[in-house]
């Protein structure tokens, strides 16, 4: 079995189309085409036995792409909360390349041994995102997305590697922020600049 087909529930699709119509003056709502719809998952540091566990993460929303009337790609996230949808529409940086990369990955010859559903996995605390191909028989595969100013690329890692890396990075980031918030420069009010270095040893 290859990849599962991508589809949005009717309510989510309608909500996203309405949002696009309101914000992009797009074509009539029902004709707004949505590309590559899939589930969105978020990791904020949940752990079990010292590791992040993909299987413990709840879905938080839907993600898809669309074209505005000006022809630009936008990425739309929809989060269902209390019976309504909350939206975030990303534009600008690399959205075209984002779409091309997803299409490229979905064409790979690595889907023969299981049935996979594609998801986006974000870990906002460590600025990480990945495509998560969840296998029906547990053969999950993770394609981490590496962003820079001009491009987006990616690399394959196993689910176990992702669970270890993201858990470790989140713990480290929490520690770094704890240190940052302990910074109390003493002469800011009088000089306008901090006079102490952060208490961080690296």
């Amino acid at each position, binding site marked *: 079995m290859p990849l599962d087909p991508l589809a949005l529930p009717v309510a989510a699709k309608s909500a996203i189309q309405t949002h696009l119509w309101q914000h992009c003056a797009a074509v009539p709502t029902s004709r707004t085409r949505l590309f590559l719809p899939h589930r969105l998952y978020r990791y904020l540091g949940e752990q079990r036995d010292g590791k992040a566990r993909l299987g413990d993460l709840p879905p938080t929303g839907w993600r898809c792409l669309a074209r505005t009337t000006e022809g630009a790609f936008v990425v739309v996230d929809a989060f269902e909360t209390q019976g309504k949808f909350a939206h*975030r529409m990303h534009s600008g*940086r690399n959205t075209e390349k984002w779409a091309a990369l997803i299409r490229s990955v979905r064409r790979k010859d690595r889907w023969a041994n299981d049935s996979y559903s594609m998801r986006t996995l974000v870990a906002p605390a460590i600025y990480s995102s990945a495509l998560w191909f969840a296998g029906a028989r547990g053969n999950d595969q993770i394609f981490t997305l590496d962003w820079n100013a001009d491009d987006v690329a990616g690399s394959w890692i196993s689910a176990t590697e992702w669970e270890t890396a993201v858990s470790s990075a989140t713990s480290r980031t929490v520690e770094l922020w704890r240190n940052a918030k302990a910074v109390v420069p003493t002469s800011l009010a009088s000089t306008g600049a901090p006079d102490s270095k*952060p208490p961080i040893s690296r």
Partner: protein
Amino acid sequence: MGELNSVVIQHQHQDQWCWAAVTQAVCQYFGNVTTQEDIVSRTLNNPGCASAPGSCDFPFPLRFALQTVGRFGDQNGVLTFADVQQQIDSLARPLAITVSFNGPLGETSHYCLIKGCSTVGGLPQVTVLDPAPENGAESRIAYDDLCSGVIMGGPWTESFTVK
């Protein structure tokens, strides 16, 4: 109600440099072109950050960076939509904000910049510039959804006016 179209943000050059990217965007908007590396070096009083930025890749309170470049106005909690409108529409100043992620391992934060506000379908909306590399540069978000955290993964907790 409008957008400060000349406010632009670069992605953060190091993993933890959202504070530097937001400060750079503020400086650039007011006509002071500088780099994130320079801002970090000056804020941390460590010239080595410019030549070896990876050695200075850690978070830092935004207010100190804004103070270092002379752009810090005031620090508050969440501003009302009317206050956001005042900053954007009346004063033509972007508004820096903190989004806080409170996960089981502890709290982390992320700094962004609000560059616009409007009312769409009766709902107040803001335009957020996000230096995080995994997001598009610009996002439109309902004001209430930014406050609650449902969109970003954590709520808006602090605001920094700039001058």
